[in-house]
């Protein structure tokens, strides 16, 4: 990259470049001293942050763990279930396993032909030509597997008998339902609770904080007071109250309430960032160029404010997961048949001898919360400008 020297005319007003008298090599031209061509390629902020994030092996492992959970949630019916992933029946191909996501996705023909949820025997009896691809583990998350349901296999044990075995990896609960299947299908809830509630909280928090910080004046007073009021609401008690009032409470109500009360920290942080960046010179420069308030907020301030705000969102996900588990443990969580990890813990309350009902879901909750916290911490370090300068 070559710098072209300036036009040589108009010497009279030139200041002699320092050092020019004694070191003619420096000259008095406009050569700049930086060597930006030495950089292999241009890196933006997020690429740079990812580079630092990657250095932390534990955080990478945590990301991999959460990625694994996402895969588990998406593939749950193919991992554990009693409905074929794919099957050919009376000349057509079906995917009955989708019924685990939503009941009406299960092809109607199986209801019409009175399968009643048991596929292996019915498929063989009603269409000898049929074939099927089965889930990895033939266990159902909402009911006990009966004897001979899978030809030659015994029924699931129930109560104290259901300790972990080859057939039931994580054991079975009081009613003989396979715990592994329950947990695999409960992954969806564990993930959704975190992402949906913090999606709501993040949106509210960023909008409130941005408005308060940027507009100032009475807008700021209003948003700050609302934030303080919401901060005083005890989330757990509110959820219990709402669940008591609503006729058919679902997990979505819980998520909505966690989101609607969990945005205060995010709003305060966003407000602070907007307040700080509002007076930054690059924002003034944008205003001098004629940029309006929307453009300044979205293009100039928000991208610079987002990194610090992501950190409390990540920690928020962790606490939302924990909160949902506590609710389920208390018996106010997802209504059956959807099982969440917390509700499995709840089953263990009756009989502590069934240690597998405590250990496996407990470990899953613990690891998930730990993973989010590790990610949040690494994110904080990777995006902190002070640490960034120091480590270069």
């Amino acid at each position, binding site marked *: 990259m070559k710098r072209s020297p300036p*036009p040589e005319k108009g010497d009279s007003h030139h200041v002699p470049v320092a*050092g020019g008298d004694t070191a003619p090599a420096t000259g008095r031209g406009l050569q700049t001293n930086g060597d930006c061509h030495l950089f292999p390629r241009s890196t933006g902020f997020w690429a740079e942050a990812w580079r630092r994030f990657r250095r932390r092996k534990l955080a990478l492992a945590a990301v991999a763990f959460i990625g694994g959970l996402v895969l588990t949630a998406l593939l749950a019916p193919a991992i554990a279930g009693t409905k074929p992933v794919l099957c050919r029946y009376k000349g057509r191909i079906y995917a009955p396993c989708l019924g685990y996501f939503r009941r009406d996705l299960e092809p109607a023909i199986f209801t019409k032909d009175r399968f009643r949820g048991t596929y292996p025997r019915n498929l063989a009896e009603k269409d000898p030509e049929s074939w099927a691809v089965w889930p990895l583990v033939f266990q159902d998350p909402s009911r006990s597997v009966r004897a001979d349901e899978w030809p030659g296999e015994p029924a699931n044990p129930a109560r104290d008998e259901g300790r972990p075995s080859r057939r039931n990896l994580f054991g079975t609960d009081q009613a003989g339902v396979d715990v592994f299947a329950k947990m695999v299908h409960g992954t969806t809830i564990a993930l959704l609770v975190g992402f949906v509630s913090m999606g709501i909280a993040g949106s509210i928090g960023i909008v409130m904080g941005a408005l308060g910080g940027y507009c100032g004046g009475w807008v700021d007073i209003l948003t700050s007071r609302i934030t303080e009021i919401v901060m005083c609401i005890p989330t757990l008690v509110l959820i219990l109250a709402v669940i008591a009032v609503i006729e058919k409470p679902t997990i979505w109500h819980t998520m909505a309430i966690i989101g609607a009360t969990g945005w205060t920290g995010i709003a305060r942080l966003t407000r602070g960032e907007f307040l700080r960046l509002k007076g930054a010179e690059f924002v003034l420069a944008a205003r001098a160029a004629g940029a309006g308030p929307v453009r300044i907020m979205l293009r100039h301030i928000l991208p610079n404010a987002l990194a610090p705000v992501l950190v409390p969102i990540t920690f928020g996900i962790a606490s939302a997961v924990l909160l949902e588990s506590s609710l389920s443990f208390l018996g106010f969580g997802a209504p059956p048949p959807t099982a969440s990890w917390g509700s499995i813990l709840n089953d263990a309350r009756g009989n502590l001898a069934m240690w597998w009902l405590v250990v496996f879901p407990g470990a899953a909750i613990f690891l998930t919360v730990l993973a989010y916290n590790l990610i949040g911490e690494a994110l904080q370090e990777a995006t902190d400008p002070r640490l960034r300068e120091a480590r270069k």
Partner: protein
Amino acid sequence: MSQPPLVAVSDLHTHFPVRKGLLRRRVGSVRAVDGVSFSIPRGTTLGLVGESGCGKTTVGRSILRLVEPTAGTVHFAGSDVLATRGAQLRRLRRRMQIVFQDPYGSLNPRMTVRAILEEGLVIHRVDTPAGRLERMRRALERTGLTAAALARYPHEFSGGQRQRIAIARALVLEPEFLVLDEPVSALDVSIQAQVVNLLADLREQGGLTYLFISHDLSVVEHLSDEVAVMYLGRFVEHAAAAELYRAPLHPYTLALFSAVPRIDPARRRRRIVLAGDVPSPARPPAGCRFHPRCPLAESVCREVDPPATRADGHLVHCHMAARALDRAGGDTDAAAAALAEMLARSQDATLAAGAGS
């Protein structure tokens, strides 16, 4: 001088409210700019000097309406800047741009140089995308950079290069007027000279008009046609650059000049040390604002705000300077010499008193 000045500022006031308590009641105001008037003819440069906190940055920002002035008028090329709004103001903004002091803070770290330069062009709907690219390339080349910089982020450049990018951002809109808010103060001395030369070249080529704000008198001297000295929100002295540097009339200007290191012994001046700090602009002193620190202050200075005294286009707000000018029959050189003499004597007296006690 039949042409009207490009920028005309009259009696500009910019006060910042000081708020306190839960209801954020207004308890006072910081008078950052408190009655400043000047005009800048097209193609010339007004240098604005003063200590930090004297309000010079606020003057620059008020003209561009980056802070809202409290009172006064600003005319730019005939239109009243403070009265325009909306699309009209946006059109005006394209014609007057600003370069900030800190090249680390004035470029958005999340945007590439291309995005930074292009923003103004996009806002003002200038040209086609290809034409915009050409304009950006030209602006970079004028500042001594190349188009290769476009794809990079600000943190990949040195301080001097960043300041060139900031100048290119201002130039790409092809403005007529540039506010240079301490554009070289944050740079190394060797790079300072390069950037000052660049600014001088640009003015020569493009017929630009500058308001050059700085606390560095030697830098201002090189670039300015006229120089104004500011103290606590007001101009204390304003004259053609050569005149001001030859015959400074305000004791504050004399003190500032005496602090500039000189290599040439003939130009070396007696060092005048001012006592105390700049008073708070929230509660400016009565009378002459400089009197608590002025070695020449008399009782009239404590009571009466000195009016402007004019001599040969040289403007000064000082009772003592007015008296000296009177005695010298309006000859600024003789008056300046007399004032310098008085200051030197008062300095000796202070030193002697200090030694005696």
